C-alpha cells in the first residue's frame, strides 16, 4: 500500500517536472526580451530540478543514492539563482533595459 502511494507520488512529481520543463523551455525560446527569457530559465532551473530530483529520491529509497540526489538538489538550488542574479546584474550593467512596451504595460496595470 505504502509502496504504491510512494510510486504514484514519484510519478506525479516526475510528470509535473517534465511538463514544466517543457513549458519553460518554450518560454525561453518565445519570450520577447532577455529579462523575460531569464525569468523562464531561472524558474525552470529551480522548480523543475526540485520536482524531478524529488521524484527520483522517492524512487531510490534510503541509500547513498538519495544522499547524492539531495546534494545535487541543494547544489542546484544554491548555484542557479546565484548564477541568474549575477547574469542579470552583468546584463544590466552592460546597458540592457527592460523594453519600453513592458514598462508601459506595467504602469497601466
Amino acid at each position, binding site marked *: 500500500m505504502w509502496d504504491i502511494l510512494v510510486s504514484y507520488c514519484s510519478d506525479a512529481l516526475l510528470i509535473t517536472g517534465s511538463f514544466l520543463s517543457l513549458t519553460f523551455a518554450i518560454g525561453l525560446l518565445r519570450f520577447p526580451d532577455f529579462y523575460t527569457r531569464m525569468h523562464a530559465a531561472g524558474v525552470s532551473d529551480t522548480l523543475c530540478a526540485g520536482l524531478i530530483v524529488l521524484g527520483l529520491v522517492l524512487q531510490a529509497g534510503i541509500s547513498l543514492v538519495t544522499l547524492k540526489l539531495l546534494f545535487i538538489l541543494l*547544489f542546484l538550488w*544554491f*548555484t542557479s539563482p*546565484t548564477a541568474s*542574479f*549575477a547574469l542579470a*546584474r552583468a546584463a544590466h550593467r552592460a546597458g540592457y533595459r527592460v523594453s519600453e512596451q513592458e514598462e508601459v504595460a506595467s504602469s497601466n496595470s
Partner: protein
Amino acid sequence: MINIILLGFLAVVAIAVAMMRDLFAIVMLFGIYSLLTAGIFVSLDAVDVAFTEAAVGAGISTILILSTLALTSREEKQPTHSFLLPLLVVLVTGATLVYGTLDMPAFSDPEAPVHQHVAPHYLNQAEQETGVPNIVTAVLASYRSYDTMGEVTVIFTAGIAVLLLLSAFRHHEDEASNLNDLSHHPVLRYIARLMIPFILLFALYVQFHGDYGPGGGFQAGVIFAAGFILYGLVVGIDKTRQMFSESKLHWLMASGLLLYIGVGIVSLLLGGEFLNYNVFAADPLKGQHWGIFLVELGVGITVTATMISVFLAFSEVRRSE
C-alpha cells in the same frame, strides 16, 4: 535512441561553431559541445571518461579559452581566401574515411575484435588480481600504469611550458591584474565561500572512492583545482596567489610525478618489475591496494598543481602591451 538524439545535437552544434564569427559565442557553444560529449560517453557506458570530460572539457578548457580571448580579440576576421578548396579536401577525406568504416564491425557487436584481445582478461581477472571493482581504475593505475606515468609527465611538461611562455608577461605587483574578478559581488562571495569546502570534500571523495565508483586522480585533481579556481574568480586572483606561491606550486607539480616514479623505483628495489605493486606487501592484494593508492595520489597532486598554476598564469598576464 537517446544516443542518436544526442549525436544529432552534437552535429548541429559543430556546424554552428563552424559558421559563426563571434568567438565568444563559439566558446559558449563549445561548452555545450563538451557537455553533450560527456552525455554521450555516459550513454556509451564510459562513466569515468564522462566524468573527466565534464570536469576538464566543459570547465577548464572554457576558462582557458576565455582568458585568451580577453587578452586578444573577440571578433574573427572574414577569411579572404576561397572556402571551396578546403571543402573539397574535407569531402574527399571524409569519403575515404566512410569507405574505411565499411570494413568495421557493427556498432556494439560483442564479437568485434576489440573485445577478444585483453579485455576479457581484465574483466574476469582484474578484481581478483588487484582488488579493485572499477576495472578502468585497475587498468589505469595497475596494468597499464607505465602509460599513465607517461601521461602525467606530458601534463607536467605542458604545464611547465605554459609557465615559461607566459612568465615574461606577468604584471607587476603594483599594477592591477588584467582580469577583474568578482570580489565586489557580496552575494557571489558568500555563496562561493559556502560551497568551496564541499567542493574540496567532494574532490577528496572522488580521489579515494575511485576504486569503487567512477573517479580517480585525474578527475579529483581537476575538481580540486576547480574549487580553487572558483576561489580565484570570486575572492580574487591575488588572494589565491598568496595561498599558492609560485615555488610552492612548482614543488607540488614535481612532487606528484616524483611520487609516481618513486613508487616504481621502490618496487624495483623490492625485487619486482617497475610499477609491479605485488611486492609491496606479503599479500599481493594489499600491495596492489597501496600501489594504486599512491599512484593515484601522485596523479591527483600533479594535475591539481598544474591546473591551478596554468589558471593563475593566464590570469596574471599583463593586458597592456
